[in-house]
């Protein structure tokens, strides 16, 4: 596909400077992306470790491996670490940081020092959370519902809350940086209508980060104030309203679902075109759907509260709007599928993850419609049906796309390929392990198994054994890429600037790219993704 490369570029961003200081004080977006890659990966395996303990406990109906109090801490730590320290930063802070300036033809983000500050805030928040892990954990669930979190819990709520609060600012500043960069740093000729779809997705994500995260920050801060000074902002025994907390929390945390999944949409839009060698079907609709999801995402939070005393009319409206948000998501799925039609599809590792994403996200999205129906939600609320649903979105969707993106951009990041056979094997393992883990949870949940309990009735035993077995396969599926990607750093063949034959400015610069990305600022003269032109030339 591309000419055989025999040597790396002489000077690139990895060898431009050496030493710990050159990394810890760097303002190069690519180096900051690598810092995020290392730390976020550590958090991913930490969160996975908690999940493994949860699954091991649930292998038997009785609460025998962990005491119920310990179990509560394990699933809480799993949720907090995975959501705030893996899913939210994963694609924006690693992949986004690395490729956004290159996609735009810029030397760096608009605010490189702010970018580094984001990473330090992320680390500071992460260290608070690690500190909590070491001294005994937190048991409120990742939602910090009051008054349990503010009055009754005996675990380390304030320190965890502080960790989330600080990390939130990292997320806000990253979003702010991306929004400004998209507005002001585009290369000449790169109009909004020519932006890569990954850019549209991350732009939409950043808007949600800027507008949603501060509300979480203030909600968590108020919980902290209530807990420290023993005053009643949300505590009903002191006149407070716990439902107000839920409104504030979900005003952020529902849009946060889109912070986690919109970047995945962007990745899939890129990969599906590269590996079917075809321009996306309906560029404007896919781009517009990202913005639509970001906007409507702010109007559906009440569907997390159907079982509270939220008024039934509010419930109806939230239910209707929740159905409505399926429209832009559906547009995307149909357009990706339509792009494959008559494309020249190749089944390399990133594409396998893309296929996995499309299938699993569709199941996750459709079960989301079940849950948006108030009547059915009352039946399956707080059961494993909900757990399975959001894992199909978060793990089946976001993690799949993240792994696809890592495999896709790995040659750009490191200058080297990886063993594709191993990659395809791992992708298959992840897909099988994932379904074995989470499909039985739909069944268990529909039959009435509640979430957040260490023990359960005998009748759910078989389904839980399947789920735990699947989780083990999934764990292996995640470890295999870790091994061969690290191996590839030294031993794999060189990739060259554009191993996939992909369009886009990021593939026009050497791999690994020089510190300022381009020798001279590129000028964009044609539409994005003109794959058909290339084929005509070949003919």
């Amino acid at each position, binding site marked *: 596909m591309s000419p055989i490369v025999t040597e790396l570029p002489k000077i690139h961003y990895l060898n431009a400077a050496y030493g710990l200081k050159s990394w810890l004080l760097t303002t190069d977006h690519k180096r900051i992306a690598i810092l995020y890659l290392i730390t976020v990966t550590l958090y991913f395996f930490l969160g996975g470790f908690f999940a493994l303990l949860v699954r091991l406990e649930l292998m038997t109906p009785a609460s025998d491996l962990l005491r119920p109090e310990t179990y509560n801490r394990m699933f809480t730590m799993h949720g907090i670490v995975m959501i705030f320290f893996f899913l939210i930063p994963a694609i924006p802070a690693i992949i986004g940081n690395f490729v956004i300036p290159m996609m735009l033809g810029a030397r760096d*983000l608009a605010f490189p020092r702010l970018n580094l500050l984001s990473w330090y805030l992320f680390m500071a928040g992460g260290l608070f959370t690690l500190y909590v892990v070491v001294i005994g954990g937190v048991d409120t669930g990742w939602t910090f519902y009051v008054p349990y979190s503010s009055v009754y819990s005996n675990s380390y709520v304030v320190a965890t809350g502080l960790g989330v609060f600080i990390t939130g600012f990292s997320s806000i500043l990253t979003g702010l940086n991306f929004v400004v960069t998209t507005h002001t740093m585009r290369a000449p000729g790169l109009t909004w209508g020519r932006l890569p779809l990954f850019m549209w997705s991350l732009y939409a994500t950043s808007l949600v980060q800027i*507008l949603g995260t501060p509300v979480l920050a203030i909600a968590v801060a108020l919980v902290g104030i209530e807990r420290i000074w023993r*005053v009643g*902002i949300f505590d009903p025994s002191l006149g407070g309203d716990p439902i*107000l907390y839920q*409104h*504030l929390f979900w005003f952020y945390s529902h849009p946060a679902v889109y912070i986690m999944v919109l970047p995945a949409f962007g990745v899939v839009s890129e990969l599906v075109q590269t590996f079917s060698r075809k321009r996306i079907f309906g560029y404007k609709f896919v781009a517009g759907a990202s913005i639509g999801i970001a906007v409507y995402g702010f109007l559906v939070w009440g569907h997390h509260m159907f079982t509270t005393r939220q008024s039934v009319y509010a419930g109806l409206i939230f239910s209707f709007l929740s159905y409505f948000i399926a429209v832009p998501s559906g547009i995307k799925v149909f357009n990706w599928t339509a792009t494959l039609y008559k494309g020249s599809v190749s089944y390399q590792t990133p594409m396998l993850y893309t296929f996995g994403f499309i299938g699993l996200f569709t199941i996750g999205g459709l079960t989301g419609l079940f849950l948006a129906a108030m009547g059915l939600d009352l039946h399956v609320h707080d059961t494993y049906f909900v757990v399975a649903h959001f894992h199909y979105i978060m793990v089946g969707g976001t993690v799949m796309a993240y792994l696809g993106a890592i495999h896709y951009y790995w040659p750009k990041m490191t200058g080297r390929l990886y063993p594709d056979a191993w990659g395809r094997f791992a992708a298959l393992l992840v897909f099988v392990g994932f379904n074995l883990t989470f499909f039985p949870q739909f069944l268990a949940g529909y039959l009435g198994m509640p979430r957040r309990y260490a023990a359960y009735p005998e009748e759910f035993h078989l389904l839980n054994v399947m789920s735990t077995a699947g989780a083990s396969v999934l764990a292996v599926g995640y470890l295999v890429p870790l091994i061969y990607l690290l191996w590839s750093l030294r031993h794999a063949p060189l990739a060259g600037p554009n191993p996939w034959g992909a369009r886009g400015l990021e593939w026009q610069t050497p791999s690994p790219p020089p510190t*300022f990305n381009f020798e001279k600022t590129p000028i964009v003269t044609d539409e994005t993704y003109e794959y058909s032109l290339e084929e005509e030339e070949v003919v």
Partner: protein
Amino acid sequence: MSESTNALAHQFDDLEQQARSNTLGMWAFLATEVLFFGGLFTAYVVYRHAFPEAFAVGSKHMDVVAGTVNTAVLIASSLMMALAVQSAQLGLRRPLIMFLLLTMTLGAVFLGIKAWEYHHKYVENLVPGVNFVWEGPLRNQVQMLFLLYFIMTGTHALHMVIGICLLTYLVLGARRGRFSREYFFPVEIIGLYWHFVDLVWIFLFPLLYLIGLHL
């Protein structure tokens, strides 16, 4: 001219792009701030709707005179800030430093009066979580008003302190002659921040101090 070249960060092509980026960045940050305070204002609306009498009664214990004086002080500081921005745009160094210092002084006066008010509340046993004592009915509901009062004005005061730090940074820069007619956007965007913080107070003042007056 050499000043301007030094001011250009490596990732930008020209000062115009840099100024555009920084201004947009500040506006985006202010959007975040609106939502941050928005959470508090939402809480205020919910509880005032739930406990209208308690909020009216409690509001009578606010020091309206101090609040009014502080409002005037802040509006004056905003004027000084606007004059500072204008001086920066015209490249007038001495007036720039003078107006920045005046802005800071008025900000400090505001914080001083605020501290005096807090002290007064402490003496009157009206600080929730520390020494709140309320003999009459609706104790919890009145406490909610004072809680919101301290959280909202406290958050606002914290923003003022950050603002004064930013102004100090501007003064130091101005004394070294960093700003010119071509390069003044740091003054402009910190001015945006300062005006925003003032604007928050314009909402806080009637909501906290004046609602009891018509009873």
